[in-house]
């Protein structure tokens, strides 16, 4: 600044001398030079602002938590939620398939038992000829045999519907994690707004969950450190002497 001041003083003195001596050409040159000093200061200010902006931007991107969230957690969360859709869809389809399979079976059973019940009533009222009684007996025997299989099929179906409900636990755990992520993100955004006026925020450590939870195919099994199936678990345990 002092140097610039000195420079300006010299320029001013030279300008006065030139004006007194009537040297028009020198006056013009000196005026241009004085204006140049002004411009130089302006450029310096712009330069400073640019540097500040640059530092702030760098400050943003080195905040490791935000970086990790945008680069890793958010796409990760998208895949996790996609998996939730897949799992709920599978469970719904599995349930609907069983219901569609079992409903006609139960309808048939119902129909047949109504028919037989009506015949049985006529037999009790002694309104049935012997020939028809013989055919009814055969029908009843047949009904017992078939109903065994049908009831077993219905029981298996109900068990399958039961198992299909397991999705709720898995998807619940996954959604809880995504909620946690959204919460973390919110906290980080608030923090970002708070520090954006200042420089030099200390970056936080990324805290890995100590319980990774359900394995989402394509997300959690990339590093090969998870058991992809019950067989993997069994192999690992048997290698440990189980």
């Amino acid at each position, binding site marked *: 600044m002092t140097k610039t001041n000195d420079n300006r003083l010299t320029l001013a003195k030279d300008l006065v001398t030139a004006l007194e001596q009537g040297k028009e050409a020198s006056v013009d040159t000196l005026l241009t030079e004085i204006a140049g000093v002004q411009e130089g200061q302006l450029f310096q200010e712009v330069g400073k602002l640019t540097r500040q902006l640059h530092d702030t931007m760098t400050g943003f991107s080195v905040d490791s938590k935000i970086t990790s969230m945008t680069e890793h957690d958010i796409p990760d969360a998208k895949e996790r939620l996609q998996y939730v859709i897949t799992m709920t869809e599978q469970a719904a389809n599995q349930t609907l398939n069983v219901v569609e399979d079992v409903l006609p079976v139960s309808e048939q059973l119902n129909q047949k038992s109504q028919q037989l019940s009506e015949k049985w009533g006529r037999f009790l009222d002694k309104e049935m000829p012997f020939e028809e009684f013989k055919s009814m007996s055969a029908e009843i025997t047949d009904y017992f045999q078939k109903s065994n299989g049908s009831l077993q099929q219905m029981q298996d179906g109900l*068990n399958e519907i*039961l*198992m299909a*409900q*397991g*999705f*709720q*636990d*898995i998807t*619940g*755990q996954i959604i809880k994690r995504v909620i946690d992520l959204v919460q973390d993100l919110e906290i980080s955004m608030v923090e970002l707004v708070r520090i954006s006026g200042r420089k030099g925020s200390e970056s936080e450590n990324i805290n890995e969950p100590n*319980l*990774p*939870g*359900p*394995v989402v195919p394509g997300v959690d099994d990339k590093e090969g*450190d*998870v*058991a*992809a*199936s*019950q067989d*993997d*678990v069994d192999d*690992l*345990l048997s290698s*440990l002497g*189980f």
Partner: protein
Amino acid sequence: MDKNMKILVVDDFSTMRRIVKNLLRDLGFTNTVEADDGKTALPILEAGGIDFLVTDWNMPGMTGIDLLKAVRSNPNLVDLPVLMVTAEAKREQIVMAAQAGVNGYVIKPFTAATLKEKIEKVFERIDG
């Protein structure tokens, strides 16, 4: 294997507890009690009378692995058979559970056949 044995099912998701209970009933085990995390499970275990523990890992309050450790450090419960049924599938976790003294490990989602097989295996080893 005594079909009348008393089984404690511990999971924070009630749907999963219902599934496990229904599967156990289907396998002939009708004597079941429930708890929603380690904290509520431990007093039930300490009160005595539980013959088999089926527990999840990731639960609020007290996790299944901490419950397992508490069980193994209690002289009255040290031999209680414990089956872990969990979505936690990291190799290091399975090793950790094995080291803590788990008797069987089933990862979710599982099938009725897997649960049956693992329960049978747990008691085969204990009875045999």
